[in-house]
């Protein structure tokens, strides 16, 4: 794969193109900023291939965390195809990551030269060689090198330094294996930049990983430990580090940030020059029975950011989740029906929510690209910020009233 971007500004919204190796320059596959489809155990949560074809007619890139697919390794060593065809998604390209953005990664358990990953069968220690063996087995189109990303805003300096030490070590070993590998010669390799919230450590990591031309792009890691908590990380918290890193990354390489960031945060990160995100956010929204309804237009009309279809007000609401939405859930079903499915815990509930949420999120990225093209990103961001603030207010009033109830009871 190849990436091309026409910009000289290092930390600003940018439009790029991702090609497959045999594509001609005019037939690029993907436009960035883009979103990878998050999978668990190789499948989009709740979505079979038959249903996936009803969601997207385009080719997509699926993001496959090793944590939820490690158990495949014995089968993969005998299977003739690559990981995408093993999981029944051979019409998609695949991107392998170490950790799962949709689930909190347990902190700690460090052992020299290894990374703990939490799989179906418990903790597994992975070193660089073992990791590269797995990658050669799984044969993804794109993968992130092994990395120690176990840092967050609260991490102590000692842990941050250790994470960078490890990441550099893994980088050197993985890059050595990658360069020599016949199997991976067409595979797009992504290096990880760690260093928590320390500019000094970020610099040390950047200095070590940004010199090799064979690296296809970079993932800014170590900002969080994945899972639903990422949703409410404020931009001000990550801004200095992300700005610093994007300003010091080679401008012509693709930049990835993984995790369940909320859409407002995505817009901020796009503003810093990030190119690729994932749909783990749709997963956590679906798991709380909610449907995304934030605006995809730039008019003045504000919409609700998301609606929770478990609420009883939707029981006899026979409108679609979002009027004018063209997804299968909105064209065929009503809020009332989905409310019923959620209330009786039927499997179709999360399926319809996922269909809508992923569809909405894909359209959100189309909107972002359109806004960059037309120079209207700031206006759109202002609007999303307003809708998001309203949503936050609702959430926090709910949580604070919950705590007051608990306080009153105790």
């Amino acid at each position, binding site marked *: 794969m190849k990436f091309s971007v026409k910009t000289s500004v290092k930390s600003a919204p940018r439009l790029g193109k991702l090609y497959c190796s045999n594509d001609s320059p005019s037939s690029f596959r993907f436009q960035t900023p883009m979103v990878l489809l998050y999978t*668990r*155990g190789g499948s989009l*949560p709740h979505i079979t*291939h038959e*249903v996936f074809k009803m969601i997207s007619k385009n080719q997509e890139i699926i993001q496959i965390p090793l944590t939820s697919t490690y158990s495949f390794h014995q*089968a993969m060593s005998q299977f003739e195809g690559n990981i995408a065809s093993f999981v029944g998604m051979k019409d998609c390209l695949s991107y392998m990551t170490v950790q799962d953005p949709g689930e909190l990664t347990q902190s700690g358990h460090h052992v020299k030269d290894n990374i703990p990953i939490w799989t179906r069968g418990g903790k597994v220690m992975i070193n660089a060689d073992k990791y590269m063996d797995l990658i050669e087995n799984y044969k993804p189109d794109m993968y992130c090198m092994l990395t120690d990303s176990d840092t967050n805003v609260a991490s102590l300096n000692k842990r941050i330094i250790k994470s960078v030490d490890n990441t550099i070590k893994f980088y050197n070993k993985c890059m050595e294996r990658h360069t020599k590998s016949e199997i991976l010669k067409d595979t797009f390799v992504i290096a990880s930049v760690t260093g928590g919230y320390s500019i000094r450590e970020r610099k040390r990591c950047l200095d070590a990983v940004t010199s090799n031309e064979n690296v296809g792009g970079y993932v800014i890691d170590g900002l969080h430990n994945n899972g639903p908590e990422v949703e409410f990380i404020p931009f001000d918290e990550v801004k200095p580090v992300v700005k610093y890193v994007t300003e010091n990354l080679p401008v012509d390489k693709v930049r990835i940030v993984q995790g369940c960031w909320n859409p407002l945060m995505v817009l901020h990160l796009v503003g810093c020059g990030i190119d690729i995100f994932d749909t783990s956010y749709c997963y956590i929204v679906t798991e709380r029975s909610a449907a995304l309804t934030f605006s995809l237009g730039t008019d003045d009309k504000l919409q609700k950011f998301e609606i929770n279809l478990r609420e009883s007000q939707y029981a006899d609401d026979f409108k679609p989740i979002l009027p004018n939405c063209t997804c299968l859930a909105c064209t065929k079903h009503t809020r009332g029906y989905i409310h*019923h499915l959620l209330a009786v815990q039927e*499997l179709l509930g*999360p399926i319809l929510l996922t269909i809508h949420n992923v569809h909405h999120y894909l359209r959100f990225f189309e909107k972002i690209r359109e806004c960059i093209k037309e120079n209207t990103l700031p206006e759109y961001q202002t609007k999303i910020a307003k809708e998001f603030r309203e949503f936050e207010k609702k959430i926090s009033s709910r949580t604070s009233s919950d705590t007051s109830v608990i306080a009153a009871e105790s």
Partner: protein
Amino acid sequence: MTSPKNPLVFKIFTECRKTKARTSKIYLPHGEVDAPVFMPVGTQGTMKGLLNEQLYNLEIQIILANTYHLGLKPGREIIEKAGGLHRFMNWNRNLLTDSGGFQMVSLLKLAQITEEGVKFQSLNESKLEILLTPEHSIEIQNSIGADIIMQLDDVVKTTSTDVNRITEAVGRTSRWLDRCLMAHKKADSQSIFPIVQGGLSTELRTKSALEHCSKNVRGYAIGGLSGGESKDDFWKMVHLSTNILPKDKPRYVMGVGFAVDLVVCVALGADMFDCVFPTRTARFGCALIMTGQINLRQKKYQNDFSPIDKECRCSTCETYTRSYLHHIVTMHTVACHLVTVHNLAFQQRLMKTIRVNIKEGTFPDFVRKFMYDVYPDKKYPSWVADSMKAVNIDLIR
């Protein structure tokens, strides 16, 4: 084919010359149904994790919904407001609802049956005593609006030997049928099926079937079976009932879904079947194949890169291997959906094969071949051998 006055037209196409099997079409308000048909169960207004589009792809023409569950949630009022269950779930093919009586007796230990109806304690917080009468059952079923609806019947455990109780149940089922027919408000769009009861007693079954025959109805169900009774008793009750029930109306044997049972019951002259088995077993990782079922959790499938069934054309078998399914089964909901699709495709394929063989006059040969594949040692269970002998197929030969 259906006029506003006649929401069910039954047309027989081919009758097997040896057995009682027949192929037919049942013309209903939401399209035609090719019989013999297996009707999958979508209890709460949804088919266990499948989209309607997937059911259409599987060429499913009719599904079941449960009155008891829908009556609790979302409740009659919401379904009425939505304009009936077809509209609520946006399903444009046929629906059949049960009466709710069976669930009450099987789910609620405290249910009490009186002449008035079934009395039970509500499952929700209120703990109110609720009485489900024949009128009430039909009222809810009228709101749901299924194309075929069931009378409220008095179900006695099939393993019961209390003759007095079974006699009472037969009489009451007949009386409740009259009340259901009286209460029915949508006779021009919904057809009520009476349910033949009578436990495992030849005499009482005969009585029940004969009483139902005198009623002005468009089809019949054979109930109170598939509840743990011996198969040797089961087939005799079906055989006896189909001998009495009029030939020119569809016959529905409730609760039958295993492949062998379906083949036997078709040979005995039944047209319609339902069972939760194919969808339920899918959720435990069991996939159906012509000779039985495979449990995908078993370690032997870890490196098996073949589909569940090489002969199957379903979307699961076209895309996924046993190996992948083995790895995700019972871990991710996707695995349930994939096996459910396959199992429904299996039921559809089995019923289609049955229909084709009846049509082509090869049904007895098919039955012999089918049973031989399932029991390659030719050690046929007595009920299979006996029931087939009763319809002129000698398996042992």
